[in-house]
């Protein structure tokens, strides 16, 4: 108990230091000239209505590529750690609740649709590839919960995942080859608020959305299999 208090005090001291430090600086003041530049130049330079998306995908697109890779790496890591060989992938069937089953059937297409909508309109409305992808993955999660025999076709999901990533890289490389700078805007900006606007953002977000969705579904598949496959193993 004393230890807990001591460490609590320690952590409070650390937080206090950060708080004191933060208290010296004000957010949103003119110091943030980079942010101001983004606000001023988003529309002429990118043609995207959503400034956040223009920052994440255009100005700091390289970071986002990294974030996509982070997820990719995490999915691979999970796949490695939960790997149990193809032959062990037998699953035990377990009846789930009627309401869940029917509910899932109804909701699942809508979830996919919403996800697709979110990542396709990333440059216009809040949200984007990550959010849409996560939503899609929740749909698959629901599927797993309702139908125990669900098993996604990994090959196809890998294909989607890889293609999503490649889309990003190839669009970036197009910029590199055509304009000498990675992720340079090679597509026309279009008219503001149009679906087909925002230059390279739309295709990239579509790729990212699909990629994130399939990656997270893969992770879910790995984890679910970990639960179910071992149960199956125990029965044999």
């Amino acid at each position, binding site marked *: 108990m004393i230890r807990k208090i001591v*460490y609590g005090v*320690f*952590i409070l*001291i*650390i937080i*206090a*230091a*950060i708080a*004191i*430090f933060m208290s010296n600086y004000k957010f949103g003041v003119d110091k943030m000239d980079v942010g101001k530049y983004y606000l001023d130049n988003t529309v002429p330079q990118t043609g995207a209505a959503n400034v956040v998306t223009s920052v994440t995908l255009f100005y700091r697109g390289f970071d986002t590529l990294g974030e996509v890779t982070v997820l990719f790496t995490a999915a691979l890591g999970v796949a490695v750690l939960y790997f149990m060989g193809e032959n062990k992938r037998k699953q035990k069937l377990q009846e789930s609740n009627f309401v869940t089953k029917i509910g899932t059937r109804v909701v699942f297409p809508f979830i996919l649709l919403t996800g697709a909508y979110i990542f396709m309109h990333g440059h216009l409305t809040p949200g984007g590839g990550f959010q849409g992808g996560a939503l899609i993955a929740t749909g698959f999660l629901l599927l797993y919960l309702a139908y125990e025999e669900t098993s996604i076709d990994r090959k196809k999901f890998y294909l989607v995942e890889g293609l999503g990533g490649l889309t990003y890289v190839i669009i970036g490389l197009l910029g590199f080859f055509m304009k000498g700078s990675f992720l340079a805007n090679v597509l026309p900006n279009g008219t503001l608020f149009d679906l087909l606007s925002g230059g390279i953002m739309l295709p990239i977000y579509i790729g990212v959305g699909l990629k994130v969705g399939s990656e997270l579904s893969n992770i879910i598949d790995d984890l679910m299999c970990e639960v179910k496959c071992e149960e199956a193993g125990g029965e044999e």
Partner: protein
Amino acid sequence: MNFSLLMILLTPIFGGLLAYAGSALHKAVRNIFFLIFLILPFFELYQYANKTIDNFYYLTVLGQSLSLGINALSFMLSLLFSLIFLLAYIFLLFEFDKSEDSDLAILEFSFLEGAVFGVLFARDILSFFIFFEIIALIIFFLIGKGYEESHNAQLKYITWALIGANSMLAAVVFLFFKAGSFGYAEISGYLSTAPTPIVLITFVLFVIGFLIEASIMPLHVWAPITYAEAPDSVSVLLSSVVKKVGLYLFTIFVFSIFGLNLFSKIMPRVFEAPLIMYVLQWIGALTIIIGTFVAIVQEDAKKILAWSSIAQSGYILLGLSLGTPLGVAGGLLHIVNHSIFKGILFFVVGGVIYRTGTKNLSELGGLIKKMPISFISMLLAIIATAGIPPLNGFVSKYLIYEALIQNKEPLLLTIALLGGTGSFMYVYRLIHSIFLGQLPKKYEGVKEVPILMQVPMLVLSLLALLFGVLPGIPMYFVSKAEAFLGFDPIKYTLTGFPEQPGLHALNVPIISAALMGGFVVAALIFYLLPKTRSVHQLDNYYAGEILTEDVKYNYSFGFYSFFDDIIKPFNEWSIDRIYENFVGFVKTVGDYIRRIYTGNLETYVSLGIIILTIFSLIYIIGGVLW
């Protein structure tokens, strides 16, 4: 032809590489290759006979040129060491006869010779250090090819070598930092004006490194086991070459780089010598007395030699640190002489082990008829070790004794003389237990070592005799070396020394003749008096029993047991024990420190939190105070 110093240094290495490649063809090809490259250095060295060369640049490090050079002292020693390397190599061929390691051993051997030349030729503190470390590294690997315990010896040796190396490295870097140069001359120039603490600290750091290699007393712990367990040819190298390299560096640093004048300037003089030299004299004397006495009670032939080697380097240190022309001449001469006679002893013992397979004295005996050449070589060598004319050990010890008398140090003289007597005790033990007495039955079939193996012993025996009767030959080199070190060289003649201040006239042939005369008279009495008659060893009785061949009637175990009883109380606080306790202490402490890595995640995270908290506190308190 003109051979550069770098070429001399590279010759053996090149030969070794060639020999290693040649070993793929045939062993004979390999051996011949390598022998040629071991003989070449003599010719290459020839042109440097009367030259002092400085600053042959060969590498640039940290903006400084590293240079090689040669002087009278290093010329003398490189000649001597080339000879010993050549002989040890011949010996090694037989020793590693059956072993698969021989090719690799030759390669290491060649690098060792190159590195030894490197130390001798080095003209700056970095090059000597580099070559010195290479020597340690190669010796480490060579030791491991020896007897059962050799692997422990390896570890002990390298621990000490590393301590020495790092101590020297500290001094090297420190001096470079202060003086801005590595060259001996520049360092010497800097030291003459440097503050006293810097001079003392760097001197002590260097000397620790040298004395570890020279196995001087408190730093000798690695030596007995290493000398005893290393392969015999490597023991020769350790005792006759590597140890002398340490003493060579000691000489160069004390007299040429630091200089006695510097010491006299910064510290009081005791008995004509600066205080630090006086301390070193005592260290040398302690090494003599303890080394000798421990050698007396050893049961292992090579251990006796090891301790004897320690004791003899005590003589050298004592002579050198007297700092008078006489003492230094004695020390330098003893370096040469000891290399020769200890070489013989190791070769002979190695030969005995080669034939009998044991180095345990109590299992040996009576080999005199089986191995007469070895016996004669050893006889000469032990006479030299005990310091009796007409062998070479006498002259150098004589010089050291005279130098002690000249410096009016009766106590040290007593110790040195006592050591002389003690050395007679252990060398007698050696020859008695191996060659005299009863021949154990299992060694009936033992033969003399092969002729090629006799060559090393015989060559060195002849040299020992020659240098003993005509001390003028080594003195020619020694006096030049002394002149290089800045002393008035002592006068000498081919056969001895003329009367000069501090030294009584000595004419070795006459003394030898007198001694021989006495010997002849004794022999005449022994053989001519009618009572003597020659009987077989077993023509004897023992407590009423008839002796048979399988009864061991002469004792060789616990030979000096009375003596053992005397020194036993001192064993309680031997230096080894102090070190063992120290190591135990360090291990315990280290083990506690190691526990900081508990393997427990909670500990680690809380450590991180604590450190972060400390920085937060620094920030908060600093902010408030600011």
